[in-house]
């Protein structure tokens, strides 16, 4: 059987390149070309303990920060692999031509939230775009050799399962409208579930969440669905939330609210060591409380960032802010608000990226690996690239097999395109999720949201699957009766060791079942 990858962002590309470098053929399916993947939006950078800033950084400290940032529910074997291999991964990207900022030949590193050392390598404020361009170039060389075959306007619909074993997947050509079956080992790298929250995330609308919902319906175990990262600093623009990269605070930006007409730098007062660079969950929550306490909006003051830093390290950010807010961030503070930014939850995998379904792998933001209850800035691009590589390496250990022939069926299928799905239905579902799973949660809100879900009337399989995934998310949040990382319960504000576990959601297509398991358990997917 051949190898089929769905999703061509950082994770899918890294996997395809790793396979091709070993001489193995693969198929790379994506709803849109790689240039349009969410990965191109990443700005701030990618973490690795290169120790280029003379601060005695080490992979051990990167490991500790990641485990602690994830509030002790990330698979520690996986995090160890991630952080140990981070320097190698970033230097590989550099060798592919990513124009990382450097000084005297060495990669510069900037401070990012939740980390005491400067560890985040960056290419000005367009790191994701720069990494993607180099990976796309590399993949292209293998496309010409026939090692990578792209299907770049093809949507993943569902798995082809046989007795609980994945045999391949169904796709739909978004141009011709025709469907095809592909047979082989499947690696899913379809990104985060932004589409469950249309208009409310910093990501792309094209990571619709439908791929996740479909495989959840098909029995794959998902985990940490309650863990949604709200980024502290976003601004509202038409149709979405626009990220103000954490690098803005890394380079000196300060958060404040007006209290009795004086600026109150609440983060600096409450957290004298990491100040504005506490982990994102903490900053977002403190912003929520500061706003509630004072009734005034949170402002980000970047006027203290030196002009030289704006030019050399944050030029794109400045352009973007001026165009969207009409304000010059060098001269005046801008109003920021928390916005949904990253999904720590996703399909459950072990450290080799195997899922609960045999012959099905997953990588990137589509999975729940590495980040526990809260993802550190700069760790997700790392997780996507390293995760893609790691999944591919495991796939390489499978016996080599023949290529699959892809035959498109004659008649166009009547399966609706995402764009044709009912936006109003998706919006209604989103409102329910937002009500239940805001920054601050409680049992009453969650119960209300779960009842509201029952009132929705899904019309087709796609909508039914979305409702099921939404139910699983709300139930995961309801069952975790404690506060940890991104999940904050007003009614259970303490972190409780009894819940130092991963929430795992499964469905048989009718009911959802939630359980809690030890994140370090061997064979976690069984």
């Amino acid at each position, binding site marked *: 059987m051949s190898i089929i990858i769905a999703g061509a962002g950082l994770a899918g590309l890294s996997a395809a390149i790793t396979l091709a470098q070993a001489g193995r053929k693969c198929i790379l399916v994506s709803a849109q070309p790689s240039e*349009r993947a*969410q990965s*191109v939006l990443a700005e701030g950078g990618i973490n690795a303990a290169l120790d280029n800033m003379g601060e005695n950084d080490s992979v051990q400290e990167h490991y500790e920060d990641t485990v602690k940032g994830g509030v002790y529910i990330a698979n520690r074997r996986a995090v160890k692999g991630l952080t140990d291999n981070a320097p190698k991964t970033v230097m590989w990207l550099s060798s592919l*031509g990513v124009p990382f900022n450097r000084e005297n030949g060495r990669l510069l590193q900037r401070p990012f939230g939740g980390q005491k050392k400067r560890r985040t390598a960056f290419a000005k404020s367009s790191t994701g775009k720069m990494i993607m361009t180099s990976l796309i170039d590399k993949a292209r*060389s293998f*496309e010409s050799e026939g090692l990578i075959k792209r299907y*770049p306007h093809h949507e993943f619909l569902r798995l082809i399962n046989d007795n609980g074993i994945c045999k391949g997947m169904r796709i739909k050509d978004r141009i011709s409208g025709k469907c095809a079956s592909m047979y082989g080992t499947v690696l899913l790298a379809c990104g985060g579930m932004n589409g469950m929250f249309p208009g409310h995330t910093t990501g792309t609308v094209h990571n619709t969440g439908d791929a996740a919902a479909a495989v959840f319906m098909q029995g794959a175990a998902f985990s940490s669905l309650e863990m949604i990262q709200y980024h502290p600093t976003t601004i509202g623009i*038409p*149709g979405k939330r626009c990220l103000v990269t954490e690098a803005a605070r890394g380079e000196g930006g300060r958060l404040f609210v007006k209290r009795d007409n004086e600026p109150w730098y609440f983060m600096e007062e409450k957290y004298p060591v990491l100040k504005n660079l506490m982990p994102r969950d903490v900053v977002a929550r403190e912003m929520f409380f500061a706003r509630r306490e004072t009734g005034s909006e949170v402002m980000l003051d970047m006027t203290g960032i030196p002009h030289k830093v704006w030019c050399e390290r944050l030029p794109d950010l400045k352009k973007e802010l001026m165009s969207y807010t009409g304000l010059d961030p060098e001269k005046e503070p801008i109003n920021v608000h928390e916005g949904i930014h990253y999904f720590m939850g996703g399909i459950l995998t072990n450290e080799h990226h195997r899922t609960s379904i045999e012959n099905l792998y997953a990588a990137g933001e589509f999975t729940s690996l590495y980040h526990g209850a809260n993802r550190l800035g700069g760790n997700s691009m790392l997780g996507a690239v390293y995760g893609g590589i790691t999944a591919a390496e495991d796939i390489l250990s499978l016996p080599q097999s023949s290529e699959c022939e892809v035959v498109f069926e004659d008649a166009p299928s009547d399966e609706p395109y995402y764009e044709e799905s009912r936006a109003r239905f998706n919006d209604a579902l989103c409102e329910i999720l937002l009500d239940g799973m805001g920054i601050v949660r409680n049992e009453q809100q969650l119960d209300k949201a779960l009842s509201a879900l029952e009132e929705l009337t899904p019309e087709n399989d796609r909508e039914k699957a979305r409702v099921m995934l939404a139910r699983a998310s709300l139930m995961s949040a309801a069952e975790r009766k404690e506060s940890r990382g991104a999940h904050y319960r007003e009614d259970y504000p303490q972190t409780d060791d009894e819940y130092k576990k991963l929430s795992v959601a499964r469905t048989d297509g009718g009911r959802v079942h939630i359980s809690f398991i030890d994140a370090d358990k061997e064979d976690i997917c069984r």
Partner: protein
Amino acid sequence: MQIRLDIKRQQSPDDKSYIQSIVYEYDDKSEVLSNALGNINKGGCKDTEGNDVSPLSWECSCLQKKCGACAMVIGGRPRLACDAKLSEFANEGFVTVEPLSKFPLIRDLSVDRSVMFDTLRRIRLWLETDAYDNDKVRDIAYESSGCLQCGCCLEVCPNFYVGGRFYGMAAGLPMSKIIAQSQKGNDKDIRQQYKKHFYSGCGKSLACRNICPAGLDADRVMASSNAAAVWKRNVYKKK
């Protein structure tokens, strides 16, 4: 506020095209065309003749000018729908919205830009070895890596057409990264591709200059590439 959107519709390349006019209401002066199209597709919208508006086919992804998906011809100019503020057209009271014309039509405002990606494969746009690096190389690599493959520059270029041997700025700019980052003595192939498919065909009409939605500095990048690829100067001081 309200504006009339005159949208070119066509069910398939074999069907006849027509203009559907929709009066769109909005409150915020920062409203952009992509958001209007998204709202229209939420349904319940009528055109100026009272007909229901069926779902419009168009492409988007990032909604913040970073992925190139939503390029179309807006008010006669190729632009990104997510960067086209409706208030810009307030004086006219209407704006025309059409698909990019140089690429095969799929439906309505969606076109098939596969040719752009095929071109990059054909010119063998990749590094054969590890990247060469110094400050100047990195600067050019950064600028040329920013290309969104949106196709706006090709739409206005008088010399580009699908199937022709001139590949336009959307290939010339990315080639500059490879020219800059190839190790010394390793760039012969890409230099030739650049000369043949970009330099010799570019009439320097500059039509594409102010069009690029990524704001890429083509002049600076091309000056370096021309020197390196055409005049074989060691502009990057490679050792």
